[in-house]
């Protein structure tokens, strides 16, 4: 008996390894941008299978997956979860791209969103489980990700972040935006520790250099977890890290050639032994991509990247370990002795910007400019999340085409979920828009900042409060990354709808809040009460005291006493009888 159970114990991991399809894939994508910058994207994907609930050895499937990440998700019945941190500003006009390479990275600051399965036992409500899972992961990522109040949760964004599994039955969507959050080293270390390679080998060792990668401009980090379910035993979790490196110094002239060694101050590492694939890619730029020479030569293929058919060069580290490990990949621009900053940039299919016009301390108007540079009209949904004290005026929303005047027909629907002040809550707004081809639409939304109590202001009240990014969701995109072999040549090299980028984000925006004088509570209580007391006292006197009349003789001087006799005292009401 004992022997057999020991045998089982010893053999189970072997069986598990044999039947499981756990696998780990990593990739590094380099994408030169037209303004002399380079977008660098690390992606680490792990596929894992469901734990067998009857298994005697718990979490045997965690050979490649981190229990600290998956346990809270499992316990709280989470179906899908995405955490995204964004620091810095993505420049849509100069990068010729609507957003970073990784499409799941969210708006400015921190953001956590996901789908929760309904609890069949009904022990805990979904909002309680959401609270506990966000707090657990917030602790994991050294970032306050949980809600301070249940009212901060946004539940109307299910359409915008649809479930990857496609089935929405028994699922509830939650989103929590933390626009004030900043991505920093503290969020990188836990990220690396979640990876099976722990930042020690494989491509992750290039990432595990906070001194280097945090000097880059725009940065985004995040994870996306899809938990296995009864009908879909395979789960996936994916981590990404993307940064934008400035290759050309601000002053003086230089070339924009780059190499992995120059970027990471390291040779290419040896492959992580558990990795099933380990790939480095360079996406050739649209403009002058033919002049980019790469050494050593890699495999070239054509791929759809964000609505454009692009040439991508790939190196498989697994297959070419001998030739690549300890070396580096170099990119040089032929016929370019020095980088000249372009005067005109190719335009991304859609650009969006959000600013505040007519800014007053208590009011303002959000102005959202959306440009469709494509040849086709697009259908889109524009969404906003506001804290409860931002009150938008729905009846005053205006849509116009730049230079052509009002076009209210472009706004086909408004879905408005108002907050419930003064409780902590959020307002969400979804506007269904048509973006006509080759034009800019200007959306204006007037708003008022409601007055906060002095205890409701954030500690640094004078600085203001960040408002989450606006999201433009394109409703007509379809992912089709591989070019159709048959008609690849005839097909146009650009098709805006053929893109994995469903969402384009605006910047977050800083709203200053009119503040009271925080030192005044006692003074206000005392002064207001004094005015009230003065009034009460005078009224009380007037109503309860006796009114009468006195005779002051005409010749009497100022100093002489008025002659007052008791008989002359009369009260208006009952004094007459006594006279």
């Amino acid at each position, binding site marked *: 008996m004992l022997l057999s159970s020991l045998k089982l114990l010893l053999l189970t991991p072997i069986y598990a390894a044999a039947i499981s399809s756990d696998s780990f894939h990593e990739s590094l994508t380099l994408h030169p941008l037209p303004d002399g910058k380079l977008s660098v994207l690390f992606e680490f994907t792990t596929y894992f299978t469901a734990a067998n609930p009857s298994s005697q050895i718990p979490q045997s499937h965690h050979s490649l997956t981190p229990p600290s990440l998956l346990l809270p998700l499992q316990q709280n019945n989470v179906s899908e979860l995405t955490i995204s941190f964004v620091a810095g500003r993505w420049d849509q006009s100069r990068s010729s791209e609507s957003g970073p390479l990784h499409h799941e990275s969210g708006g400015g600051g921190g953001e956590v969103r996901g789908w929760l399965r309904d609890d069949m036992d009904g022990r805990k409500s979904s909002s309680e489980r959401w609270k506990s899972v966000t707090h657990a992961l917030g602790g994991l990522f050294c970032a306050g990700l949980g809600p301070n109040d249940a009212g901060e949760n946004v539940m109307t964004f299910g359409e915008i972040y649809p479930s990857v599994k496609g089935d929405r039955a028994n699922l509830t969507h939650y989103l929590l935006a933390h626009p004030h959050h900043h991505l920093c080293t503290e969020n990188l270390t836990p990220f690396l520790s979640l990876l099976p390679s722990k930042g020690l080998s494989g491509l992750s060792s290039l990432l595990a250099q906070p001194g280097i990668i945090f000097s880059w401009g725009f940065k985004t980090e995040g994870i996306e977890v899809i938990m296995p379910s009864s009908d879909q035993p395979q789960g996936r979790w994916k981590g990404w890290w993307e940064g934008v490196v400035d290759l050309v110094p601000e002053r003086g002239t230089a070339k924009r050639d780059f190499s992995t060694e120059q970027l990471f101050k390291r040779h290419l590492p040896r492959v992580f032994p558990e990795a099933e694939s380990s790939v480095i890619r360079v996406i050739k730029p649209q403009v002058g991509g033919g002049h980019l020479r790469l050494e050593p030569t890699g495999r070239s293929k054509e791929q759809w990247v964000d609505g454009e058919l692009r040439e991508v060069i790939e190196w498989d580290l697994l297959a070419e370990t001998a030739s690549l490990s300890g070396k580096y990949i170099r990119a040089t621009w032929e016929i370019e002795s020095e980088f000249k900053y372009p005067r005109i940039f190719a335009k991304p299919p859609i650009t969006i910007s959000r600013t505040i016009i007519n800014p007053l301390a208590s009011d303002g108007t959000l102005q959202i400019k959306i440009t469709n540079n494509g040849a086709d009209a697009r259908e889109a949904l524009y969404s906003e999340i506001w804290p409860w004290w931002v009150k938008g005026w729905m009846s005053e929303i205006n849509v116009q085409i730049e230079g052509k005047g009002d076009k209210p027909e472009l706004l086909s629907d408004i879905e408005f979920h*108002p907050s419930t002040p*003064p409780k902590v*809550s959020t307002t969400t707004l979804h506007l269904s828009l048509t973006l006509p081809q080759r034009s800019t639409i200007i959306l204006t939304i007037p708003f008022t900042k409601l007055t906060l109590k002095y205890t409701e202001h954030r500690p640094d009240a004078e600085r203001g409060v960040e408002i989450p990014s606006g999201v433009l969701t394109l409703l007509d995109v379809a992912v089709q990354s591989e070019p159709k072999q048959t008609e690849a040549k005839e097909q146009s090299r650009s098709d805006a709808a053929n893109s994995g980028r469903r969402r384009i984000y605006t910047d977050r925006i800083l709203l200053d809040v009119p503040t009271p004088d925080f030192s005044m509570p006692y003074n206000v209580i005392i002064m207001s009460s004094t005015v009230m007391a003065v009034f009460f006292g005078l009224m009380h006197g*007037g*109503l309860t005291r006796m009114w009468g009349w006195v005779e*002051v003789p*005409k010749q009497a001087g100022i100093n002489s006493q008025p002659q007052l006799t008791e008989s002359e005292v009369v009260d208006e*009401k009952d004094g007459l009888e006594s006279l």
Partner: protein
Amino acid sequence: MALDRLRKAVQSYPNVLETGAVLRLALFAVPALTNVLQSRPELSTPLTSFRSLKEGVYIYERGTNPYQGGIFYHSPVYLFFFTYIFPISSNILSGCVWTLIDVASAWSLVRLWRTRKPVAHKGRDGLVAALYLFNPYTLLSCLARSTTSLDNAVTLLSISFAASGQATLSLLFLATAAHSSLYPLLILPPLIMLMRKWKQTNPSSHDAASIFTLVATFITFFVMLAGLNWALVGSSWLRRTWGVITNVTDLTPNVGMWWYFFMETFEHFRTFFLGVFQLHNMIYVAPVCMRLSDDPLFAILVLVGIYSTWKSYPTLGDMALWAGLLGCFPEIVSNLRHPLFTLTVHLYTSILLPLLHSLWLLTGTGNANFFYAATMVYGLNASLAIVDVMGAGMRLGVKRSVGEWSQQGTGLMEGEAGAESKALDRLWEEKGWSVVQFTRQLS
């Protein structure tokens, strides 16, 4: 010459109403002016602002209940009125409606004045209307399309119908006013006294007027309106209209004494101070009604003044209602101690309020204390004015009692109102008499 012509014009009140209406319509034709006025916190609070009303109607028309979220605090009565009866989206139509509302207020003031002085009314009709229609507070509230104007009109109609003995109409209007802004409930007792006084002087009337019937009628109207609201939007409006008035959950600055207090006060004292502030409005009802029982209309004047100043979301339009009523009491005005002071401080605050508001909330250079200081001056001045008016009423009462007693006043009482008080003043001047408030309590 011009002054004479003006005096003549003022004497006929239809002329005054016409001029007031034309002036309003002309000013409504300047959208730049009305747009600026609509956003002034002195003229409209979130509970009375036209912008909120428009937003609420917009949301309601799209099939959503505006009371479920956001900030819509208007009474459902107004929501339905402006959704189904007068579509609010039309600027011309709403301009006409607000003009009409003010004309109706002035008309009811004239009616009130006539019932008050049945014999000698001719000379002052126009003046009473003009004092209301051309009061800048009234005019600006109207141009800002604040629903305060509407509340005022309904309240004035109620008072004037009560004074002429039309109890049912009066109570219906009072129920509407109370539904909208709650505080007019406070004038129900003096209003009933007014109706009963009318009954005593006109015993031939068939109108039932026992206190019980009157109160029951009022409750019936009030419950009917609530039922109507309930049928249309459920119970959601309760917390968003009366709930906000009583709990002061919206702290948007206004001219009152509440917003900064409840913005700054400590959370655990909030309920206590809410009680104190609300009770402060209510405690005056009984003593004022008892002491001024011989003139219920005067009691109404004092109570309207108190709640216009001390209600949770006051506007300058509320003060206009009080000032309009005061126009019906020329003998009180002539007995005021410091009318000039009151008037100049009103002028001073009308400069101070917008100035300090813009420093804090528009340019963002000042802080809340600036605007708070201005509202304190305004509140103190309004309070002192009420005390002054009440004192003037007391002094007048003493003078009249003495006049009756000394038999000198007989014959004068039948004369014109202005003449009566002038004669009385002359008599007191000759005798060297003056009214004083003693320190002795009433026994």
